[in-house]
């Protein structure tokens, strides 16, 4: 029997500079056969896919973009280490045909590793459009390797790449200075082991300059382009507007406004549909499956939890749709260019603007969108401060408390006092966002050297397939990674608020349902229902927890009832309003809760919800990290519990101290 060497699984990686169109090629080759995984120990996502070609099945990994084999960031380190330690069977080096000189540097390095390699001249259509003429036959001879020129946007030529991958060979040519070293792979590997960085750095500089000389020679033989040292006219025309000192900011603000409208308002419709669908599902389960604790667990705990996870999907979809469009078109680099100096003062990045603005809708998608900030320190700072931006979930809490502080409408000239206070709360959030970033920038030390230079890619029409697959991957990552944590916590919260020590809750049930108080029910059936709910909540574990934390929150002016609402609103801040409504038996309507709360008296008969208490509470909610979903997503994005833990402690301390100061000043 003859075993054909091609009859096996091939492990193949895609390697290339950022912006070389690697992901487009990856999507064209694998289609929907892809998934996002993790590289151990780092925050970089691992994109894997597969395809079949004749009798071969190929596993493809889309490695993070890198400019050379000497890693300068975590992303690049992942790419290089994968190449050296996992030793894939074939390396596909993806080159941007319009930017061949710089792209060839990496290609020559890879060829010198002595691995089976295929070189892809990607975006060949764009090169033709720009009058860049590449003699690929000559390039093939000079590089000593199979070259495939394609336009990965139109899937044409993907069959040629598949064939080339299966038949890939090792290049016969060498591009490093052989008088310096004989084993290039070993030298590359030493960057992860050799403690003597200065010596290696010198070697690295010489290697790159030597290669560039080679590359320039190859380039001069293979590439004919009429316009030397000139930017493309189309790019320049657009840039004259989008990086202009007036129009540039105007364009950017307009785009931010559109994004804001979508994630704030348009997303509400699908979110409402999801909520309604799950409420229907929950009552279907309640009514059609045998009752008992299992039924309650599924219909209330699990279904509500899943609904809570899926509720984020519309906002994530919209935000990432816009970000993918801005990123793929090339605009994002320009936005970053005009915003960089302002944001850098606070230790943030030009690319932090969109996350900060979208955090006014919700911190969860905006934390996920910090992926595009390539500098790790600036990305971490951005993630850390985002929960300080007042999100839409705080709005119901703000509205309730402000209307309690100022029950009647006070108008100063043409300004409404409630509006001014609300605005002030948002400004307070923003101020602490920037202040915290500013302080963190001084405190945070990263071992990774910081480089900010970035390529300004040429403008291209975004490819729908790429945008759609990108958004789909984000949703999958959120639902299956962060979703697990959110679901677990919401089930725990559900259990704690529905069950209590001993049989206290059953006794309440018995006491009222057994009609000991029929007159309550006759008076107002809704009041009766709310009254029982309130009694049950008090008897539950969370009710007890509220009493346990009362001594801690008393200095802020809160009692155990507020304590309960603070604990339950860890699920999401707006739950505060619902819980207060349940505790006070207000049947969910806002006016009802407000009146109930305002007439509440303390032990000595004074009004309980004074200006001091309300203001202290509202300040607490400006700062506190009262959101399990944010914690889950920070854990997912930083790949450890360390950062969400630090963040939680900091924000809770900030909230506590500020609320305490507020209460004591106003009291």
């Amino acid at each position: 029997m003859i075993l054909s060497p091609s009859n096996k699984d091939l492990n193949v990686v895609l390697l290339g500079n950022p912006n070389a169109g690697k992901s487009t090629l990856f999507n064209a080759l694998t289609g929907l056969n892809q998934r996002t995984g993790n590289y151990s120990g780092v925050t970089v996502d691992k994109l894997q896919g597969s395809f079949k070609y004749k009798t071969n099945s190929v596993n493809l990994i889309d490695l993070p973009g890198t400019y050379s084999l000497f890693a300068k960031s975590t992303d690049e380190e992942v790419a290089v280490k994968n190449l050296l330690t996992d030793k894939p069977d074939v390396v596909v080096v993806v080159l941007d045909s319009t930017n061949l000189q710089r792209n060839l540097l990496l290609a020559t390095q890879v060829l010198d590793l002595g691995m089976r390699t295929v070189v892809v001249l990607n975006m060949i259509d764009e090169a033709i459009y720009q009058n860049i003429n590449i003699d690929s036959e000559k390039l093939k001879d000079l590089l000593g390797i199979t070259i495939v020129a394609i336009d990965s946007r139109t899937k044409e030529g993907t069959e040629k790449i598949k064939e080339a991958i299966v038949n890939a060979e090792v290049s016969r040519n060498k591009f490093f200075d052989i008088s310096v070293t004989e084993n290039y792979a070993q030298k590359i590997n030493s960057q992860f082991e050799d403690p003597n960085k200065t010596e290696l750095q010198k070697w690295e500089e010489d290697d790159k300059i030597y290669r560039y000389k080679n590359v320039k020679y190859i380039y001069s033989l293979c590439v004919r382009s009429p316009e030397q040292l000139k930017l493309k006219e189309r790019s320049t025309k657009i840039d004259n507007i989008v990086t202009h000192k007036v129009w540039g900011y105007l364009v950017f603000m307009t785009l931010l406004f559109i994004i804001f409208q979508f994630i704030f308002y348009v997303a509400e419709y699908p979110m409402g549909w999801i909520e309604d669908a799950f409420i229907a599902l929950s009552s279907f389960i309640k009514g059609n499956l045998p009752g008992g604790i299992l039924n309650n667990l599924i219909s209330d705990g699990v279904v509500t939890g899943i609904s809570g996870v899926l509720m984020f999907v519309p906002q994530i979809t919209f935000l990432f749709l816009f970000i993918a469009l801005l990123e793929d078109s090339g605009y994002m680099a320009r936005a970053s260019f005009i915003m960089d100096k302002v944001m850098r003062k606070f230790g943030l990045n030009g690319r932090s603007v969109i996350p900060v603005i979208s955090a006014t809708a919700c911190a969860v998608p905006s934390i996920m969108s910090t992926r595009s900030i390539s500098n790790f320190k600036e990305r971490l700072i951005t993630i850390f401060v985002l929960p300080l931006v007042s999100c839409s979930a705080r709005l119901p809490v703000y509205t309730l408390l402000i209307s309690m502080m100022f029950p009647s409408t006070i108008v100063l000239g043409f300004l409404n006092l409630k509006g001014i206070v609300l605005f002030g709360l948002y400004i307070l959030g923003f101020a602490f966002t920037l202040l915290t970033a500013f302080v963190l920038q001084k405190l945070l030390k990263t071992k990774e050297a910081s480089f900010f230079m970035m390529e300004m890619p040429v403008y291209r029409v975004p490819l729908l397939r790429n945008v759609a697959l990108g958004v789909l991957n984000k949703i999958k990552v959120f639902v299956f990674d962060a979703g697990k944590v959110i679901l677990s916590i919401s089930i725990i919260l559900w259990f704690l608020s529905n069950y209590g020590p001993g049989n206290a809750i059953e006794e309440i049930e018995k006491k009222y349902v057994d009609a000991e108080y029929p007159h309550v029910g006759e008076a107002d059936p809704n009041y009766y229902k709310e009254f029982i709910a309130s009694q049950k909540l008090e008897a539950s574990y969370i009710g007890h927890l509220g009493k346990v934390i009362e001594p801690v929150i008393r200095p802020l002016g809160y009692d155990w009832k507020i304590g309960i609402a603070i604990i339950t609103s860890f699920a999401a801040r707006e739950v505060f309003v619902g819980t207060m409504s349940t505790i006070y038996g207000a049947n969910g309507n806002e006016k009802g809760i407000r009146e109930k709360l305002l007439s509440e008296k303390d032990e000595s008969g004074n009004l309980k919800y004074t200006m001091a208490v309300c203001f202290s509470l509202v300040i607490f909610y400006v700062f506190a990290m009262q959101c399990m979903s944010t914690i889950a997503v920070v854990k997912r994005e930083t790949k450890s519990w360390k950062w969400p833990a630090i963040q939680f402690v900091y924000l809770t301390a900030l909230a506590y101290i500020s609320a305490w100061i507020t209460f004591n000043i106003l009291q």
Partner: protein
Amino acid sequence: MPNMDTLLSQLKPGEKAIIKSIADNPMKTKLIEMGCFPGEELYITKIAPLGCPFAIYVSGYELSLRLNEAMNIVVERLN
């Protein structure tokens, strides 16, 4: 002969120049990697409205640099 050497950060947009040397610090290898090596021609394509960062055309593409990075590149004016 007058010394024509100047820093990249002192060029005006559009002025062509050739790279003479790059300051010796950890940024050097990265700059070389991005195509800024001695002997290569470049010019500033635009400067952000607030005076930083710079965008330059070098090695066949456009690269954006912050001021502290641009200050490492010593160039000679060409025209």
